[in-house]
């Protein structure tokens, strides 16, 4: 209770907020979002580290299996896991991270606290998407480092493969982030947040050829998974990381990148629309 000389009154009524307010607040929110992300153990384990741990497990397990023989040569079963876990990371960093994080902030009063201050809703999303992008980039680089240096898997070899990697990553992350905002509207309490989001994210990975390679799945399950964007994200990532011969372990033994772009784009648009309709910054009752 010291410092009585501090001027605590507003000098004069201000008119409007300074230029660049939205950007400045947004950048400061990225700082807070990253701090929150790094301090939440469940986040660090189940969203950040999980695909990296699974890459170790799966690549070690499948690495000892016989290679998949195709008419154009052999494909290492272990190498399939690098594009799979890169896709998984994009899904977790986008969908699971935002799905759980935004749902908790909705129900624990954080959104309300923020909306009581002059924080533009755009700044809130700059903070969220900035956090998603930064944590996902670090996670992806860690996956590539483990894949290349520990297991000796190949990075994309051609400009075309790098190009596909770039758009699949970018579009995939935007799409997954939007779907995370949509899923965040489903839980009805703080405690329900991970219970609702995690099973959905888990099941979609099993049926989309991420935990189980696509050759292990029955046709009808692949047909169902093909409705959702994750199977297409994983498909594009396999194109980026695997040799041409890997097309023989795809549906119809063909790459279908046009379909992958289309599905990711459609789901992104659907996600943006549904998120825009369902997200409430200031909840009025």
């Amino acid at each position: 209770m010291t410092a009585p000389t501090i001027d605590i009154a507003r000098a004069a009524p201000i008119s409007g907020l300074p230029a660049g307010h939205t950007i400045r607040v947004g950048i400061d929110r990225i700082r807070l979002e990253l701090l929150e992300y790094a301090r939440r153990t469940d986040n660090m384990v189940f969203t950040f580290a999980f695909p990296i741990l699974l890459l170790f497990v799966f690549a070690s397990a499948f690495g000892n299996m016989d290679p998949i023989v195709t008419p154009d040569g052999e494909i290492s079963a272990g190498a399939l896991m690098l594009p799979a876990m890169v896709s998984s990371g994009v899904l977790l960093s986008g969908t699971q991270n935002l799905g759980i994080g935004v749902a908790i902030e909705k129900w624990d009063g954080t959104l309300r606290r923020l909306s009581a201050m002059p924080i533009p809703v755009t700044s809130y999303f700059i903070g969220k998407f900035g956090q998603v992008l930064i944590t996902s980039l670090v996670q992806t680089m860690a996956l590539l480092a483990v894949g290349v240096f520990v297991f000796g898997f190949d990075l994309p070899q051609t400009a075309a493969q790098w190009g596909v990697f770039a758009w699949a990553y970018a579009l995939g992350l935007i799409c997954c982030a939007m779907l995370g905002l949509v899923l965040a509207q489903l839980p009805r309490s703080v405690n329900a947040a991970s219970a609702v989001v995690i099973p959905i994210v888990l099941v979609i990975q099993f049926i989309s050829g991420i935990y189980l390679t696509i050759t292990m799945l029955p046709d009808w399950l692949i047909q169902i998974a093909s409705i959702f964007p994750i199977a297409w994200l994983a498909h594009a990532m396999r194109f980026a990381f695997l040799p041409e011969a890997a097309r023989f372990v795809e549906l119809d033994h063909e790459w279908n990148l046009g379909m992958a772009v289309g599905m990711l784009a459609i789901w992104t648009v659907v996600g943006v629309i549904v998120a825009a309709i369902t997200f409430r910054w200031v909840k009025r009752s």
Partner: protein
Amino acid sequence: MNTAIEVHGLTKRYGGSPVVDDVTFSIEQGETFALLGPNGAGKSTTVETLEGYRKPTVGTVRVLGTDPLKAGLEWRSRVGVVAQSLGADTTLTARELLTHAERVFPNARRADDVLSQLGLLKHARKRIGQLSGGQKRRVDLALGIIGRPEVLFLDEPTTGLDPEVRRQMWDIVRELSEHGTTVLLTTHYLDEAEQLADRAGVIIAGKVVALDSIANIGGADARMPVVRWRDGDRNREERIEHPTEFVTTLSRKHSGEIPGLEIIRPTLEDIYLGMLRAHGTESTREEADA
């Protein structure tokens, strides 16, 4: 004087009976106003309507001349909110939250100045979850005042706090008020209203049953002194405007002491409990009797 807050005919209904029923009051700039009432009387609903979180069923509200439902960020920068339970499940520290708030409000105070004023400097590096209830409440208050608000809403600012922390909170509210901040506080503690407010509105079961300065609340009748004495084996009681005159007359009828003489001036508490009995529901009457 300008009016900072205006509430006119505010009614809020969720399906059945109204939670807030035709409430009207206004608060001048620089005034501290207490909305006093038992739990569930409609205090928070009223304040949350003024904060822009609830839509009136009927009636109009204005804060700094603006309808809170249509207010923008510039309005938010002039209004401070200390809600009942922000209880955010955050891993951030008090300093992290406040340095962010410092960047969010134009013309904000320095985070460390506010932390120091609230006695939070030595806890500034602790995560919010590790703070005590009183410390968390002070962080809430710090976030509410860092932007130098013209209007400050305090929803039950000291509920559940120990007496020392309550007094600290009171000192801070008084200091803000001295600097011209308009304060609307809700409380179910009479002493809090008495200590802080210039005027109070008593709200019971959604209705404002009294609205006046703290000195006059309840009206002249409720404040009328009561003279009690014993007449033989009967207890007598008289409500009388001029007790001295009455006692002088009474003393002439007695030789020496008047047995059991008492002159009681109703305290704010007596007046408030009288209102709870008169206007309350079953449960508020029980509260008053207890």
